[in-house]
């Protein structure tokens, strides 16, 4: 069974439920304090939260931690690296993914459920979806407004849409470029997303649509 590290920075706060969700998806998972090492892991998840309280910019300080060098190594080896919310911010700040996550168009924290259109299934995290499928999960962020000046090295993985999968301005909760909610690198093994799939992995919590992100990741790591 593949084993995943869920990295905990000071202020990370979605680590416990992310570990539980990976287990539910059939993987092993451990919380790993950011000063520990990543050897022996088959993949890494950077969970959501407020590392360093979002002081300066979301993810900016964590991205400069030593452990990120190890994450870069892992990514280079082709192992799966998933960043959720604050984790996505860390990935962009660490240049593992291009672009930046700017303050929402209404500069406030926004917690609500949204629809996403799955734009690509050939990544380590989306193989369990159908292309064009519309799924539901919550967002919860103040800086999720994706911006990049060059998208040539990126695969758009998830886009904010309406219920019918239409990518329209009205369905864009934070002003992000092209309604981008999640992107991956060209290789498909590094993915960052603002919505929280781990919060949509239990029928009682409103949806199980998110679980397939982790199932895809577990399957990919097994390969």
């Amino acid at each position, binding site marked *: 069974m593949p084993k995943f590290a869920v990295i905990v920075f000071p*202020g990370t706060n*979605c680590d416990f439920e992310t570990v539980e969700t990976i287990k539910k998806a059939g993987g092993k998972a451990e919380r790993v304090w950011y000063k520990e090492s990543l050897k022996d892991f088959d993949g890494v998840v950077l969970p959501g939260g407020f590392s360093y309280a979002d002081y300066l910019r979301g993810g900016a300080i964590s991205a400069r931690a030593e452990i990120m060098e190890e994450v870069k190594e892992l990514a280079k080896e082709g192992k799966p690296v998933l960043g959720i919310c604050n984790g996505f911010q860390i990935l962009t700040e660490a240049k593992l993914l291009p672009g930046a996550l700017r303050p929402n168009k209404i500069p406030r*924290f926004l*917690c609500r459920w949204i629809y996403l259109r799955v734009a690509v299934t050939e990544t380590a995290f989306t193989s369990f979806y159908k292309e064009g499928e519309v799924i539901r999960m919550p967002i919860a962020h103040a800086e999720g407004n994706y911006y990049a000046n060059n998208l040539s090295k990126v695969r758009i993985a998830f886009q904010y849409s309406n219920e019918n999968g239409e990518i329209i301005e009205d369905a864009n909760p934070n002003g992000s470029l092209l309604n981008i909610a999640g992107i991956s690198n060209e290789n498909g093994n590094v993915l960052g997303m603002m919505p929280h799939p781990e919060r949509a992995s239990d029928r*009682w*919590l409103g949806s199980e649509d998110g679980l397939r992100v982790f199932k895809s990741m577990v399957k990919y790591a097994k390969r």
Partner: protein
Amino acid sequence: MFPHEEKFILKKLGREPNEVEKAMIEVMWSEHASYKSSRKWLKLLPTKNEYVILGPGEDAGVIKFDENTTIVVGIESHNHPSAVEPYGGAATGVGGIVRDILCMGARPIALLDPIRFGPLEKERNKYLFEYVVKGIADYGNRIGVPTVGGETEFDESLDGYTLVNVACIGIMHPNELVHSYVTESGLLLVLVGNKTGRDGIHGVTFASEELSENAEEEDRSAVQIPDPFTEKLLIEATLEAVKTGKVKALKDLGGGGLTCASSEMAGKKGFGTVIYADRVPQREPNMNVMEVMISESQERMLFAIREEDLEEITKIFEKYELEWTVVGEIIDEPRYIVYWNGEKVADLPINLLTEVPIIEWEIIEWEAGPYSVEKDVRTPEIVPQEAFLKVLSSPNIISKEWVYRQYDHEVQGRTVLKPGLDAAVLKINDEYGLAFVSDGNPSYSYLNPYHGAMACVVEAIRNLASVGAKPLALVDNLNFASPERPEVYWSFIETIKGLRDAANAFRLAYVSGNVSFYNEVNGKSIKPTPVVAALGKVKLEHITTMAFKDEGDLIAVVGVTNRELGGSELYRVLGIREGIAPRVDLKKEKENAEGILKAIEHGLVKAVHDVSRGGLAIALAEMAMVSGLGFEVDISKVPVEAKLSPLEVLFSESQARFIVSFEKENLEKLKEMFKDFAVIGEVKGREMVFKSNEDKLIRISVKEGRKIYGSLPKLLGE
């Protein structure tokens, strides 16, 4: 401090206390820390039943959820600091109650924020509102504790002021309970967290005095800068330390700072302590011993541990990069001794700090004098449609989505029922959830504090029943003006009696609470504002919401509607301050709430909503707007006690009522379950239609209604 208190101290001590001692005594004897004018009355509240593990007395209450799960709950106000600096005041209010939960050994899992303001037309009130919400959001979100519900009320009487209450629940295994007192001597006292600064000095005494007009300039010392980053680290470090089983006692530093935490920790079971105050890490230069001892700097915890465990425990603090210091130790003699740079600067019998004599304020009888505003008035005649639009667009009725969207209500992955419904529900295990809700009704309490207080309790219970939850426990937060005013003190006592009687009727206990006196601005009292938060247990399968489910479902009212509009939202929007507050009939409340729970358990109802602010009209509208489905009802079918005008049927705020929707085939079974039950219409179309016999009273599309319901951002000028 009063002259007779000073005399008492002189006698007990046999000498004048020195300056340091005096400062510490003053802090511990302040109203806020000692409850000296409320304690006697609080004793009336029931505090025991089969669920209660630990009632009031420590930092938070503890109840049994099941064999493996213990729930900790508390409530706190941060009114004065929030009125002065809304962002920091509200945020540090969250921090304080979270540490209260934490110091019992529990992981904080949810917050509620009952908050109250003056009318939004005034810039100052708008400013207070926006920044209180931002403060709660920034703090709660950053520490990863979801804010899953609350209340937001606007009332003229709070112009320029704000009431910020926060309730928190935590979860732990029964074995993990840590007390706030020690039961052995020789333990080391370890102070962990933020450095100590001058902030909050005189904060406790500040919360015990009325806010004066230029408070902003004067009370700088009472305002603190929130530090959610350190708080989050404290949460994780504390829980990791507690897991070792080696934490012998634990307390957060709140009002009264180190003096309060250490004296209560040591003195409760008759031990004493020596504090080496100069060891306390100081944030500001040249602090003196008094400042160090009573500073209320936030995000600090005090641990009592055995010397041999020091290394193991402090390693955890170091992992989280938290500063820690051994600041003292527990001794056998019941004395409170403080050293400062090697010199003994205080030496008191410890019970002089921890046992404060009760002083009774003047108690007076309610006089049918100027305060007695409860008198019957006639409901003016207005067109129902017009009245409906007025009430629906009242800031107290419209959706609070603008507020709770700023709160991370999903973090930790437990939130089954999210904000915007009758009560929040958190998933505790694969079978059961915990429901959590808060209610306050100052407009009733102002008219009739006894019934107003009962209304808080029964509304909370109705909210729980509406989602399918059986009540487990209560906590109360009593926001009042100066108890030195006879009418305020009287209303306080009446409130307690109401809280007592309502809880007793349901065999419920108050496991924790908080009293906040001296809530006045410019010499004007606030309305008596008791706020009750309630916990309930619900089978996940039984969770029900207020949303209509299918067209064709029947709609029925449970309970009787009387002409009870005093304190109602209709009267408020019409500018009527008088009237008679709704009366609470505890027997009916109990019957109907139990009936609803049974109906839910048997799967007979599809949607349930209690009737509260805004009466039947608003309750029905909320069920429609949440679901998107319309309805048609004939209000002449509503069970009434006396003859009521249609307007009164629509907007009366009689208690003990619910609205349910259900499939036709369950009608007979439901009828049998309730004494007062009447079908009034059905779920239908996309319009809200109220008729009385053949007269059309109100007709408005759900879409139009939602537009009004969602108008809070517009009121804020967005």
